[in-house]
Structures are given as structure tokens and as C-alpha cells.
């Protein structure tokens, strides 16, 4: 089933001259994890906002082309209905805390209260999410007094708790240390396994390469390439667009330049380890035969 179909979509925010998105043609399927990558101001957040209907339903501007979400024109969606169907974790953790709840537990429960869920079910659901995200130590704390990283986790938990079919996540690990980033990605992978559709903006390419099914690369508001993760990261189009790639892919490129290419270009660390191990075995056999 098609999650989103964008045809010739351009969007210019009100009071600006330059479009944030230019002539985007894209089809997103349900049940996959899409990573949106690109340099700063390439339109990643605007694309996510469009998929969630925040533009143009909330942030005004000029939208041209056709954007369909789950088979219905974006402009025909009721914003309240969209908020139930598509969860959205924003980039800035400091504006995602409601400011009206006394504890993290209540903060995570807010979305469920707004959906009219009975309190006993709310408690069970929040307990599950707290356990899943290992937030036990934070539940009794005041959400307004958390650090950036803790707020980011709480904001993430709050959206996960709402159990939307589609989750758009804008840089969920920007304030997190490597260990917490890995933990968040493991949760995202589990969400995908449970059948959720995920659209994720992320700058940590190694994690994108490891977890994403498909990658959408943007630059200057234009779609550079969309496709399976390994295809996108090995595409020469990325080089021309100044878009970063996973460290192991860069390493493989460097090996090509020194005349020692690997048998294929890896995009994940596991692939790279396997190829290098094979190279080393081959190398030592060659040494022995000499």
C-alpha cells in the first residue's frame, strides 16, 4: 500500500522567496523505514512536515503539485485525524515538552489522554513504553527540568506511546550520546518489525546504512536520488551533491583511489568487516604462497 505519493510537489514558506522543496516526485510504501538525508537546508524537515500535513495545514505557504497521503489528497485530511494516523517527533526537544505536566510519566501519557484512552489503559501503555525506552529512572522527574537528551527521549516516548501506524522522526539522536543513539535506533528497528512505517531524518549515516530500507537524498530542496539504502550510498549522484556517506563507504572509496578496491562497496560496518576479513584471509594466503 502506498503511504505517500508526491507528484511535482514544490513548497515555498510564506514570506520567503526560495522554495524549500522543488518538483519532488516520490512514492513511499507502507511498512518500510525511509531515511531522509541531505546537507543543512536541503528540505529534509519540510519534506517530513509535508508528509505529516504540517505544511501547508499549519505552516502556511504555496504548495504546488499533488501530495497524497494514504490515497487521500493532503489538503482533504482533517488535521486532528492526521495527528492520530501519523506520529511526529520533532527535532527540537525543548519545544516538545508540553509544559503542563508534573512528571515524565504524565508527559508521556498526554497524547493518550488527548486520544480519549481510558486511564487504566493509559497507565499500561505508558509503562510499556517506559520499559521499552528504559526511562524508569526518569518517570517521576519534572519534564521541564530534564537535559536536552532526556527530553528528546521523552518526546520520542510520547509519540511511540500513541501507537500511530506511521511515525515521522526528525533527527531523533541529535542530542544523544552514541550509546543512546544505538538504543533509539534499535527501538526504531523494532517499530518497523511490528509493521510501522517510518520516515526518519538522520545525519548519522552509519546508523542510516544499518537500519534504513530505503534512502531519500535531498539537496537544495530537490530530490537527488531515492532507492534501496546500498544503491543510494554507492551512487555517484551523492558525491556530486555533497551528501555524506557512511564511514565504511568512504573508506572503500579511498581504497579504490589507492588501487586496492574491495570486491564490492560496503555501506554497513558488518559488510565492511566481512569484506576486510576476506581480503585479509586472501592476503595471508597470497603471502604464504609467495
Amino acid at each position, binding site marked *: 500500500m502506498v503511504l505517500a505519493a508526491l507528484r511535482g510537489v514544490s513548497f515555498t514558506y510564506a514570506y520567503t522567496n526560495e522554495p524549500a522543496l522543488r518538483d519532488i516526485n516520490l512514492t513511499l510504501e507502507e511498512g518500510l523505514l525511509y531515511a531522509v538525508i541531505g546537507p543543512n537546508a536541503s528540505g529534509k524537515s519540510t519534506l517530513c512536515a509535508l508528509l505529516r500535513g504540517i505544511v501547508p495545514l499549519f505552516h502556511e505557504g504555496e504548495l504546488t503539485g499533488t501530495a497524497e497521503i494514504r490515497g487521500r489528497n493532503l489538503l482533504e485530511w482533517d488535521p486532528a485525524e492526521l495527528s492520530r494516523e501519523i506520529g511526529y517527533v520533532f527535532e527540537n526537544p525543548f519545544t516538545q515538552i508540553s509544559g503542563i505536566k508534573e512528571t515524565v510519566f*504524565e508527559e508521556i501519557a498526554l497524547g493518550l489522554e488527548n*486520544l480519549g484512552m481510558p486511564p487504566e489503559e493509559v497507565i499500561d501503555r505508558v509503562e510499556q513504553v517506559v520499559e521499552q525506552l528504559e526511562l524508569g529512572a526518569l518517570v*517521576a522527574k519534572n519534564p521541564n527540568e530534564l537535559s536536552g537528551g532526556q527530553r528528546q527521549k521523552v518526546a520520542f516516548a510520547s509519540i511511540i506511546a500513541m501507537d500511530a501506524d506511521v511515525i515521522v522522526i526528525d533527527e531523533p539522536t541529535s542530542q544523544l550520546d552514541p550509546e543512546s543513539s544505538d538504543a533509539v535506533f534499535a527501538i526504531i528497528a523494532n517499530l518497523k518489525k511490528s509493521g510501522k512505517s517510518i520516515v526518519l531524518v538522520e545525519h548519522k549515516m552509519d546508523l542510516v546504512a544499518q537500519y534504513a530500507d530505503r534512502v531519500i537524498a535531498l539537496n537544495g530542496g530537490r530530490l537527488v536520488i531515492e532507492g534501496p539504502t546500498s544503491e543510494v550510498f554507492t551512487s555517484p549522484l551523492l558525491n556530486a551533491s555533497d551528501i555524506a556517506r557512511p564511514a565504511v563507504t568512504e573508506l572503500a572509496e579511498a581504497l579504490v583511489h589507492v588501487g586496492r578496491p574491495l570486491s564490492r562497496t560496503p555501506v554497513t560496518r558488518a559488510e565492511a568487516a566481512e569484506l576486510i576479513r576476506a581480503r585479509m584471509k586472501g592476503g595471508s594466503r597470497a603471502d604464504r604462497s609467495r
Partner: protein
Amino acid sequence: MSSESGNAVAFVNRFRTYVDRGNPIRNMDPIVVFIVLAAIAIAPIAFPGFVAAAIVCLIYPVIALFAGVAREFLPTYLKLFLVVGLVLFVLRAAFIDGEDPLFRLGNIAPTWAGVEEGARFALLVMAISGAVTLFFNLATVRYLMLALELRGVTPRATYVILASFQSIIDLGRHARTVLEAQQSRGIETQGNIIVRARAFFPILAPVFLAAINQTEERAVSLDARAFNSNVPHTHLVMLRPTRPRELVVAVLVVATVLAAFIGSAVGWF
């Protein structure tokens, strides 16, 4: 079971029962507390002189004592009396014209009428500010808003009030951050009042602009939490249902105050 997981269970279990603030007065319906205190606060207006206002000012410490909040309430209330009450009394007493001045100090000639009027005005203000202070010790705005929401006030209205209180704290925190950033760049922020004012005013613009900028993001974030959903919202926190005796107290206090105003209007006092 470890003590940490035991604490977590106890923490979660508190949402399965009514909110217990550990005292019958503090457990009262916040709307009832608000109505009773508001009625008591305005009651002295119906009476001539300052005796009624003085009695009301004395009622608050008694309520605070029974509610177990005297330690929090009394120091604040005494400070209010000493700073605001005293200034209001002196200003009114000193400058209200009348016959037979009690003494003269240059152009200032307080009279007995001025002292009486000053005492009445200062005590009326103290009666009202005492009610506000006591309310914040007895109930929380959060529970008051929840009680109002349960009686049909829209979540948007209650959110605006609660978020406004939080935004005051956030603005203060942000102002401190900007001030510290300025300090680290070598800008003088400590010293006499002029130095402090010179350092303080330039931070107002970035602090308020950032707050305005964040408002939009907050609104969208709230929308992402289904705040605008059309179904009736539920509430994790359970307020105790209003007890009949609380209603009786509220009705009696309001009726008494109403009677006082009617009496005042028809000239009983």
C-alpha cells in the same frame, strides 16, 4: 523486588487512586477552595471600617494551620504585610485629608480618619492577597485547571493558563542562560543597579524573540500529541469527587458573604 522497582510501582500506583495531598483541607475540590477563599477575600468590602478586614486576615493563618501549610504560608504572608501592607497603610494614612492632625511632619499631617482609611485599605488588599497566597498553598493551579476541565472548560483554555505559568519559569531560566553567556564573553553583569540594568535590558529582546519563535513549534508539537482531537480527553490524574460537606461549606460561606453585601446595600451596617 529492588527498592528502585518498588518505588516505580508505588509511583505508578498513585495514578490508580484519587490524588491524596495528605490533608482533608488540601484534598478539597480546588474549585470549592477557590470559591470559598474568593468569597472570604471580598467579604470585608461589605463592611465599614477595618475590623472585618482584620478578622479575615486572621482567618487565613488559622486555615493554613489546620491545612498543614502554616510553615509555607505564614512567612510569605508576613512579608507581604510588612512590605506591601505597611507601605499602603503609610501612604494612605499620611496623605488623606482630615481634621485634627495627630502630628505634623512638614507638609504631612496624618489624621485619625486617614489612619482608619489607611488601615481599611491596607487590610482589604491584604485580605485579597492573603487569599491568593493561601490558595497557592492549599491547591495547585494544575489541579484547579483539571477540576475546571472536568466541569466542561475546554482543554485549550486550561492549557493557556498552565502554559503561561510555565512560560514565566522558562523565560526566567532562558534569561539567566543569556546573562551567563554574556558574562562569559566578559560583559559586566554584576555590580550596582545601573550596571545590572544595563546588562539586563539587552537580553530582553533575544529572550522574548526566542519565546515567540518557540510558541509556534510548541503549538505544532502539541498538535502532534493529538491535542486537537475531537474526542473528549481523558485524565490520568484522578481528583477526588467533591464531597457533600465541601459543597455545604461553599454554599454557607457564599450565602453569608452575599447576605453581608445585601445588608450593606440596604444599610444594615
